[in-house]
């Protein structure tokens, strides 16, 4: 008796792949309402996820900016003369953990103040109550406190300020925000995956008969599975279109109209250009992933014929 050739070849012919694509698209149309339901579920989820990602990435950015912005404002006492100021500057520069030192005279300080808060302050030009200031930046935000202490011990320094306490609180707040956001995003993705796999399962149950026949005439599992997986992919793709559009529109408006107002508050959001496209790509990938994974999970048990 001649032995059968019983080895599955995994290579798939191009026309078979074309067939799978055609089948998956046909199936989308045939399952009209189920398609609509899945796509809606993905849309809502991805929209929420997208908004969360926008918020989180910007929170991150603001937090980073703030961290890097922490400067030690070291006020020079009135007694210190010019020679002492130069001495102090070299002393500060030689401290470990100091990145940069900027000296600003009290006249410069005042003009900054006028610039920020209005002409009323120019009254003080007659009798400037301000002090000369060293703006010192630490190489690492964490070193700020130590550097500040060291500077305050220098002779000729009236006092130092670096937003003690408040900064730490802000950081904890931002960190909590980040973690909560991450958990929410994961929960949303999980929900969408569950919804998709449920929807696809319903369409599969309706076509169980078909799958059985396919298996009985000798279709491999992948032959049966691929059209369903592609269908899931389409659901994910379709579901990501609206969220991407909305998020681009939303962020365009934020950067265009809200950013100028926020600049006054020293907040600089992420630029529109590369960022929003990265987020869009992320949403698209997530849509495709949950679609594929959802179908993959739901078809498994129907293949055991």
């Amino acid at each position: 008796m001649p032995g059968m050739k019983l080895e599955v070849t995994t290579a798939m012919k191009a026309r078979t792949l074309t067939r799978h694509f055609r089948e998956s698209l046909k199936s989308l149309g045939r399952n009209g309402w189920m398609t609509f339901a899945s796509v809606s579920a993905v849309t809502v989820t991805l929209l929420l996820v997208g908004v969360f990602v926008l918020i989180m990435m910007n929170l991150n950015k603001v937090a980073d900016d703030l961290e890097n912005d922490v400067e030690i404002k070291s006020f020079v006492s009135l007694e210190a003369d010019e020679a002492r100021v130069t001495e102090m500057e070299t002393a500060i520069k030689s401290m470990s953990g100091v990145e940069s030192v900027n000296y600003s005279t009290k006249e410069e300080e005042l003009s900054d103040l006028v610039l920020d808060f209005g002409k009323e302050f120019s009254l003080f030009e007659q009798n400037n109550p301000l002090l000369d200031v060293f703006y010192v930046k630490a190489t690492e935000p964490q070193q700020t406190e130590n550097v500040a202490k060291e500077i305050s011990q220098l002779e000729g320094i009236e006092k130092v300020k670096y937003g003690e306490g408040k900064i730490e609180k802000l950081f904890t707040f931002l960190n909590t925000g980040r973690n909560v956001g991450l958990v929410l995003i994961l929960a949303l993705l999980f929900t969408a995956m569950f919804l998709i796999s449920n929807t696809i399962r319903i369409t599969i149950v309706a076509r169980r008969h078909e799958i059985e026949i396919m298996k009985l005439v000798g279709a491999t599992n992948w032959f049966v599975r691929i059209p369903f997986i592609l269908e899931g992919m389409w659901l994910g793709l379709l579901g990501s279109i609206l969220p991407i559009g909305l998020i681009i529109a939303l962020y365009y408006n934020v950067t265009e109209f809200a950013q100028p107002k926020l600049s006054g508050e020293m907040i600089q959001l992420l630029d529109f250009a590369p960022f929003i496209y990265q987020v869009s790509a992320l949403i698209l990938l997530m849509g495709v992933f949950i679609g594929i994974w959802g179908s993959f999970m739901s078809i498994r048990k129907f293949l055991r014929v």
Partner: protein
Amino acid sequence: MIQMKNVYKKYPNGIVALNGMNVEIKQGEFVYIVGPSGAGKSTFIKMMYREESPTSGQMLVNGVDLAKIKRKNVPLLRRQIGVVFQDFKLLPRLNVYENVAFALEVIEEKPEAIRKRVLEVLDLVGLKHKARMFPRELSGGEQQRISVARSIVNTPKVVIADEPTGNLDPETSWDIMNLFERINASGTTILMATHNREIVNTMRHRVIAIEGGLIARDEVGGDYGYEG
């Protein structure tokens, strides 16, 4: 080409369907499988295309032991076997042509070859002129002929039929039987489970009677042997 050695099958619910069965079927034979319901006939048939696998024993088809075959290689086994069911199992959304072509698409045959071969078998079963119709527009007998066409479209060595005339009236049953005769005449092994005593007694072939999970009788040219 089909050989069972001490095949034993116990279902998870404890029922023993086959109790150490030994049988050999040669290439080109026409075999009726008869016996009362629940005697193990269906299990016997299902084992041929590996819908069930033996709990123990050897089950050789074309020299391959189905008890040991890997799950992923089952499709390849099925491509060498044609199966016809009592309820036809046609795809309702596909027309006649597509239903038959399906078995070839699955094995990634070339489109031109598919077309040629499908028309050939449709002609053989006499339904070429209904190629564009859908299963629901056909009579039971016609649907079964389509199903037979599908079972032989990839030129299997063996066709397994599970009560193919069970849902048909006597006249159309004879049409189907004539079809099987012709397929058998071209060298294809036919294995057919049936309750139709008239057919078994008229078109004489080897009869294997299964009772209580064992072969009760095995005679070439035998009769149905059960009352009613």
